[in-house]
């Protein structure tokens, strides 16, 4: 899957949850969304992107959510 697109999609999700003042809830919100709505190969490709680049172009909240998913 095109990592550039997945990064944009994941960041778009994060931009919604960034309004949430409770940081833990925001991280859970993004991670939960990826878990509930992304097909596994998309999540895998995003994780691979994080492995390979350390999370290039990901917003901090997106990165935290991806780490939480890996957790």
């Amino acid at each position, binding site marked *: 899957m095109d990592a550039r697109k997945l990064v944009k999609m994941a960041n778009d999700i994060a931009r919604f949850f*960034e*309004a949430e003042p409770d940081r833990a809830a925001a991280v859970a919100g993004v991670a939960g*969304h990826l878990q509930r709505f*992304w*097909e596994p*190969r998309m999540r895998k490709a995003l994780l691979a992107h994080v492995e390979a680049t350390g999370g290039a172009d990901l917003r901090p909240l997106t990165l935290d959510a991806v780490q939480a998913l890996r957790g």
Partner: protein
Amino acid sequence: MYSVKEPDHGTPARQGEATVTVTIDGHAVTVPPGTSVMRAASLAGVQVPKLCATDTLEAFGSCRLCLVEIEGRRGYPASCTTTVAPGMKVRTQTPKLAQLRRGVMELYISDHPLDCLTCTANGNCELQEQAGVVGLREVRYQGGATHTDAAKDTSNPYFVFDPAKCIVCSRCVRACEDLQGTFALTVLGRGFDSVISPGKTAFLSSECVSCGACVQACPTATLTEKSLVAHGQPDHVVKTTCAYCGVGCSFRAELKGDQVVRMVPDKDGGANHGHSCVKGRFAWGYATHADRITTPMIRRSIHDPWQVVTWDEAIAHAAAEIRRIQATYGRDAVGGITSSRCTNEETYLVQKLVRAAFGTNNVDTCARVCHSPTGYGLKQTLGESAGTQDFDSVDDADCVVVIGANPTDAHPVFASHLKQRLRQGAKLIVIDPRVIDLVRGPHVEAAYHLQLRPGTNVAVINALAHVIVTEGLAKEDFVRARCEGPAYETWKAFISDPRHAPEAMEAHTGVPAAAIRGAARLYASVPNGAIYYGLGVTEHSQGSTMVMGIANLAMVTGNLGRRGVGVNPLRGQNNVQGSCDMGSFPHELPGYRHVSDPAVRALFDAAWGVTVQPEPGLRIPNMFDAAVDGSFKALYVQGEDVAQSDPDTQHVARALESLECLIVQDLFLNETAKYAHVFLPGASFLEKDGTFTNAERRINRVRKVMEPKAGKADWEATCALAAALGYPMHYDHPSQIMDEIARLTPTFTGVSYAKLDRLGSLQWPCNDAAPDGTPTMHVDRFVRGQGRFMLTEYVPTDERTTRKFPLLLTTGRILTQYNVGAQTRRTDNVAWHAEDRLEIHPADAELRGIADGATVELESRVGKTVLRAHVTERIQPGVVYTTFHHPGSGANVVTTDNSDWATNCPEYKVTAVQVRPATQPSEWQARFHAQAAEQLGLLPRGREEA
């Protein structure tokens, strides 16, 4: 089967309890106050002669045929305009009345052609019938002046206007005004000189929108369907449902054998109450169009000629390919797309096929590209992925907010209903970048038109909420009683922040702060405020956020849970609500239950005898990305045309070309079928039984009026494919599929064909708690328990204008065409819309040297296309607009793959573009036409014309 002749009680029913008892020719009858004497008589079984009255219109009292005698009253009052009073004694037949009626009738007939035997209406003409009823035997006035040689107007493709036969009863004029709200017809002149006219021009060039209400109201052959002229009077009737838009109008298909003579909207239709638009009433000719492909076909590569095969061969080939691809690339390399134009039963079966026989959750539906944010946003806030009201609820609304929707074009019958309410005095707020017809029309004017810049919906909805909260207009007691407290407090603090103030947002939205403040006060201060919205809300990068913003606004003003209020998505396609309900989304089983829920899966595992996968599958845009990427290889598409309807056409084409097996099931060789390896012929809505669910959650029956042209209804083809995959599904009739849906879906437990036949239609939830269905949702509590306010930060879209792309393109649809146009382009509706045009403001046009009608190139970051310009002030400067009904105009070559953050619903409504004069088609169009020619050449001989 129903009788061809419908009862006509003369005047409309009155609401309320029957408390007034009157006696008609000795028969006692009890009716609600306000009922006419004529209607009371009819209900007592006594038909009073009439001409100018019909029960779809308020009485007018012009023909004087319906005179009666009332004990204790002088003279001969007209029974249609006289209302009942307690104890009234009415006589409808006396020698004096007979004499008066014969006199009236004689005058009419003296100015009427006496060609009854060859007249289209022969046997079904109210004038003819009434002449018989009143016992007219001679006409004394002969040789005087008449209108009998007045010229016919045949300009409308669907009906003729023959003024020679007109009795000037003005039923047509009243139908156009009261039912349709278009005011296209007038009575010109007075007395003998009066004539009916569509504004002193021909029907086709008039304001007429061809809804046909006047044709239906006309008691004579003056206004007549051309199909009736061609085929003669029908001999039987089958009730069914329109297969076009999400209004879901009920129709009486009037037939002669299996020939449709005409479609007449059903007075008992829950959504339409006897009204319709041009599409449903007239545009059904595509069903028998010569372009229909009625034999299965297969081919090895998309550049090979199609080979006609039997159903068995086509199905066996498709099944073998699916299994080969799964063996080579893995179980999840295949998927399916269900159709929002097919029935609930068919959609349910396709998702069952994918989940149970393919063994994957890679199933999606075209709702992905229209209302998926509605599903997500309403579920998060209110707890159910559907509109909250029935259409009739609008009768109790005091202020109606229409956001990103153009009902007069896209949901015409609802628009007529809404306009009735607006003419009664309800206030209107329109939030739309374009000056849609509702903003200013005959006897309708919006109190506020918030003409925002495309892409700034959330900024506007937040600003409205900000005004309501900071000006103390919130209904705190409703919120306290019905919503989650902590979430409300967080939201209140969020929305009160000055960054959401209309003044702060004005620079983004382009909407004057004062207008936002005025609109917010209006919506918050009326007893009942109702919101209706369309794809201008959902098809944005913040589509889901906007839906939540709308729900927030309704909750904070207490506008939920009763008639006259609510949050109402106007659904695009006939069964888009149903296709979502039926589990078409990759993450949800029927009834919107997530696949990760073990209890839900266990239910389906047991019923289907398989193991349903616990992970969500690919959504349509993800399928395309995975196809380009090489991990997705086979797709079964029922009744959708993704190659035309989905954004970034060239990317979609690359994805479809990457598939090793594309199975397309459709009526026509659509754009997607040009990339297919297996073609399964589809069945039109006239050829099968089933149900559609409209935008108000109303389940309506679709009934078969003719045998499937290709030998199989769509559900039968899906069953055959499942059987060939080693997963036989046993159904003899779609009613059994609905029984299975009812067993497995809590909101459908009470639904059955028997009950639908008995009650006409049912609005889900329909179960033990609501055996007759649920017109209004969330009455005492929200489906999720307490309503949840969501934080809706405005995030500007990444699609920005630049020097290179200085204009914003937004897309939409028009009245006479439907979606990708595969159906409507194959009807006479092309008389109104033969091509897609680019609307551009005069200032932007002048700057570029573009005249009205000129050929222009439209370029975005992803593609270019060429079409003709329409210079108009409907659109604001800086914004251009087009429709996507014709594949060659390539609107979606230009739209990008930006999408809603939550659902991947594409951002069709905002694309940065440049427009410049052009002289020839774009490169894409040249390729498109070459491919179209190649693909038609690959059809079996004799079919090249398709």
